[in-house]
């Protein structure tokens, strides 16, 4: 089986290194041009089980704004992001909410939690 080289752009940090990955079928033989170890790990992950941090919003009642920003507690499996977004469209929370509060635990059974990206205090009706 011939080895093949492909380029993967690392998205771990803003540097965005273009990694050169040599692999034989599913086996990664080497990762070159990575600026740090995180790049090597990223290439392995990306070619076997690509994941992304997902940030979106859910409805909130009684807060300063109608939306609460939320994010995944860890990178989330890329093929299931659409499904996750669908699930979050049905979520509504009530203010107050604290930063990092779990909004949806164990999303889609992945073990990854959806957490609040900010605190939002309750807003009392205008006096």
């Amino acid at each position, binding site marked *: 089986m011939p080895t093949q080289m492909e380029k993967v752009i690392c*998205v771990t940090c*803003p540097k965005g290194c*273009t990694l050169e990955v040599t692999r034989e079928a599913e086996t990664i033989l080497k990762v070159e041009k990575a600026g740090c170890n995180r790049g090597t790990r990223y290439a392995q992950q990306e070619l076997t089980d690509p994941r992304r941090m997902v940030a979106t919003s859910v409805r909130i009642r009684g807060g300063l704004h109608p*939306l609460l920003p939320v*994010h995944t507690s860890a990178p989330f499996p890329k093929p299931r992001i659409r499904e996750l977004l669908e699930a979050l469209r049905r979520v509504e929370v009530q203010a107050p909410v604290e*930063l*990092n509060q779990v909004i949806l635990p164990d999303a889609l059974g992945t073990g990854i939690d959806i957490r609040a*990206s900010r605190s939002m205090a309750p807003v009392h009706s205008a006096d």
Partner: protein
Amino acid sequence: MSDAKQYDVVVIGSGPGGLAAAISAKKTGADRVLIIERDVEPGGILLQCIHNGFGVEVFKQDLPGPAYAQRFIDEAFQVGVEFMLDTMVLEITRERRITAVSRKHGFVELQARAVVLAMGCRERTRAQIRLPGHRPAGVYTAGTAQRWVNVEGYMPGKRFVILGSGDIGMIMARRLTYEGAKVERVLEVMPYLSGLTRNYVQCLLDNDIELQLRHTVRRILGKNRVEAVEAVAVDEQMNYIPGTEEIIPCDTLLLSVGLIPENELSRQAGVAIDPITGGPFVDDSFQTSVPGIFSAGNVVHVYDLVDWVTEAGLTAGKSAARLVRSGLAAGDGPALPLKAGENVRYVVPHTLRPDHLADGDIRVQLRVRQPLERPVWVELRSGDKLLHRKGEPYARPGEMITLPVRPNLMDELKAAGELTVAVVAR
């Protein structure tokens, strides 16, 4: 004069630059530190940047924008920074007298011993890129759309074209796709991406959104609402190439065509503005041309990472507090001019005091004119003499380069004249 409220340091704006400046002024020993913010809550534009990726470079943490802001908001309250929210500053004088208005406080006059300008930047609009056609609904800046979608809960359209490959544009392309819209195309007039490569990957490639370089919008079609845009390829001189026109049906056009430091207040105060950055001329303590008036963050020059904005704010706030405490503008020794040399569009700070190296590194930041997709040297020179250099794997106009100047260079710098920074192929 005597009726005005007195403060040691007044910071204008509570984005990352302003928050960092206020915190560090307080920690450096300034007594009364006040932030004036026009929004109803502190945090600035970070509050609408709900995506991840903040804090990776400097703080080694990957946070969403609001979480990054909250870390500093909480700290500001803890250290005793005062806030005046929902308040618009109308004027700042050279003598650091500030007038502002708000529903809660009415018309207020304040006197500050030092001011830190941290108003951030604004987006370039349709008028600034001279986009012809009718003025239908459906043409917005990417940041306005970001505020609606992420904070206020409105979708500005269903089918989008985005002009400009800046980070906000690419991030909005992903965000709109997440919210069920179709992004037909991202057009970039330059032959290269203007935002970060990782945003091209995780925002555009991941979501099958097409990017066309060397393309722009020639006109907008539709009278009451956008119905389509006419895209066209451009040549090296930015002229339209006949025969390449394409009608792209859409209901919304987002503009991500650059940011401009917001310096109306700075100009009123007599602060000298660099025509290239659009922000104040600053020394390495971020003091402007007006003694006692400092500035930090995107109001000085547009950064691509918030981490550096925070760092700049910390420096400006510390300098402002030192001025208040000691009466010395953080610097006393002579200042050397720092100029943009070969393939450098601009460099900040504009002057550098070698004496300040006694406090640690001075961070010189710059942008290149032309991309160099091969290893480069970033060089600090005095005349023909090379004082210091740093290697980078490549140089791109969209990615700011940082050159730390180390304390061990102090003696050499003291003997130097005008300094230049150049970026050359290795």
